[in-house]
Structures are given as structure tokens and as C-alpha cells.
């Protein structure tokens, strides 16, 4: 019997494909934002709001990740330049999008006609934090009914986020959500994350979010 040194990251296969995805996107001057949250926090609503506000300024494509159904893709259809639905229920792993799924989704997209891809991850606060997809920015949404303790319970996803959104602000009078406590937890874990308070229902705060998105796309374009 002999011992061989290995020292190899087990998630390296995913990371290799993710960086290949990013190279392809960069080549075509496309930015990608990975949107993550628990189910029902408002990923699709945020995408719809973003499409409505920015459709005259950017060509936006959407990748929808769900365990099953094309419900979300249908909602977005007609508003986005291109929509790809990924059903992870047919794949070995259903809990998160992975780089290989994005690789096949962007393969047939008209990348030269696209400025931004919004990627809606599978509703889950655990698994998506382990898998990079090739995105340029990572965004996490928390909504008021979920409670203000999510950053404490699921720290990893907040630690790696570039932006954290507090959605459903219109429900503030009806739920016990301590905004200051939530912000304090996020700032402790990740002082660099931009925090947005908004409501996809009433559109309150959406403008500031859309300015941030535009800024990311522009900064990214300059870098390339």
C-alpha cells in the first residue's frame, strides 16, 4: 500500500466550468447576475421589475432555475430578449443551479445581442452558496415574512453576496421584522455588500436597485 498526495478541491470541476462560462460571457461583453433566495422571497418578481424598468436601456436575457415547471419562464417570456428554463429535477442535483447547467443554457443564446443575463437560482439558501456559475455578481433576497434571522441561520450565502435585498417592504406594518437587526447581521458578515430595501409589489426602492444593476453592467463593460 502506498500513500499519494492529492490536495484537490472537490468543487474544482464546477469552478473550472464557472470560470469558462465567465470567459465566454466576457468575450461577448455580457454581464451575469446570480439571484438567490428562499422560495417565495421574490426572485421572479424582482426580475420582472428589472425587465420592465431596464428593457429600453439593456438587452436582458433570463435563465430560470427550478426543480420543475416552466411557470417562471412563462411569466418572463415576452419581456426578456431570451429565456431559458432549467429544470433541475431531471438532473443528479436538484437543489441548486450549477456551472454546467449555465454552460448549456448560454451555448445557444444570442450573446452578441445581450448585455445582461439575470439568473434565477433554485429557491434555497444553502446549496447555491457552494456553487459559482460564472456570474459577475451574486445577489441574495430576503423578504419580511421570512424573519430577520436569516443571515444568522444561513451565513454563507450572505458572506459571498455583492448585494442583499430586503423585499416586501410594504408588509412592514404587519410582520415582526427588525430591519436594523437584519442590516446589522449582514454588515457584520459582509461589510462590502450593498443593501437594498424595496417592494416589488409597490415598486418602492426599485429605482435604486436598477441604478445599481446598470452600474454593474457599465463597470463590467469598462473592465473588459
Amino acid at each position: 500500500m502506498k500513500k499519494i498526495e492529492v490536495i484537490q478541491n472537490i468543487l474544482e470541476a464546477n469552478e473550472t466550468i464557472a470560470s469558462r462560462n465567465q470567459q465566454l460571457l466576457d468575450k461577448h461583453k455580457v454581464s451575469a447576475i446570480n439571484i438567490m433566495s428562499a422560495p417565495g422571497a421574490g426572485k421572479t418578481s424582482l426580475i420582472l421589475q428589472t425587465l420592465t424598468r431596464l428593457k429600453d436601456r439593456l438587452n436582458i436575457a433570463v435563465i430560470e432555475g427550478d426543480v420543475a415547471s416552466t411557470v417562471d419562464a412563462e411569466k418572463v417570456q415576452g419581456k426578456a430578449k431570451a429565456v431559458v428554463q432549467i429544470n433541475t429535477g431531471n438532473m443528479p442535483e436538484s437543489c441548486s443551479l450549477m456551472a454546467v447547467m449555465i454552460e448549456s443554457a448560454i451555448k445557444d443564446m444570442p450573446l452578441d445581442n445581450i448585455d445582461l443575463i439575470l439568473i434565477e437560482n433554485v429557491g434555497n439558501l444553502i446549496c447555491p452558496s457552494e456553487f459559482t456559475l460564472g456570474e459577475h455578481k451574486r445577489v441574495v433576497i430576503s423578504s419580511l415574512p421570512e424573519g430577520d434571522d436569516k443571515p444568522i441561520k444561513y451565513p454563507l450565502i450572505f458572506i459571498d453576496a455583492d448585494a442583499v435585498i430586503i423585499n416586501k417592504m410594504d408588509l412592514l406594518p404587519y410582520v415582526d421584522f427588525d430591519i436594523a437587526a437584519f442590516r446589522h447581521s449582514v454588515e457584520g458578515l459582509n461589510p462590502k455588500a450593498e443593501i437594498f430595501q424595496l417592494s416589488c409589489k409597490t415598486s418602492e426602492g426599485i429605482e435604486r436597485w436598477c441604478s445599481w444593476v446598470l452600474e454593474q453592467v457599465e463597470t463590467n463593460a469598462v473592465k473588459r
Partner: protein
Amino acid sequence: MHEFGVSENIVNIALAKAGEAQASKVIQINLVVGEMSGFVPDCIQFYFDSLSKDTIAQGAVLHFELVPAQLRCRSCSTIFHPPDTLWACPKCRGQSVEIFKGRELYIESMEVE
């Protein structure tokens, strides 16, 4: 929840490395798994057993070295193990902390013949 994919990667890496070493059998795979990585060792072994069937890694034992979580306070640089879910520095009570150790997930070495 995503231990299947992780196990698949372990099998692939082990078979590739065993091939390079011209081994005929993989006896043990030594893994380093951080407490914060969110992976369940028993679950990985379960999938590994099924995925490695009929390969030279069939029957290999997965040995897990668990790395406890260590946090570092951004204010006073104290390194500590979080005693509960509230990540506060035991020295200055600051809650601005970063993960210092505990997100590891790699194959350290293998025993082959």
C-alpha cells in the same frame, strides 16, 4: 443536499489520481471537510459506495478530517470558535467577523495499492 455531485467528483478525482499512480485499487481516501461547508460525511460515503461500484475505488473507505469553524473578529483580530449561532467576538463583543477556517472541502491524500 448536494452530496451526490460532491461524491461524483470524489470518485472522478480518485480514479484519475489512481490512474496516474498506476494503482490497481483505492483503499482509502482522506478528505478534509470544514464544519461550515455544509456537507454530511455519512451521506457522501453512501453516494460514494454506489458511484464507485465496479471501479477500482469500489469498497474504498472515506476518512473525514473535520475542520472546526474558526472566525476572526474584524475589529480586534481575535480568532474564536463560535459557541452558538450568534457570531460575536468573545473579546470585544464585535459582530463583524469573517470565516478564518471551516469552509474546506478537498481530498488531501489517498492510500492505494
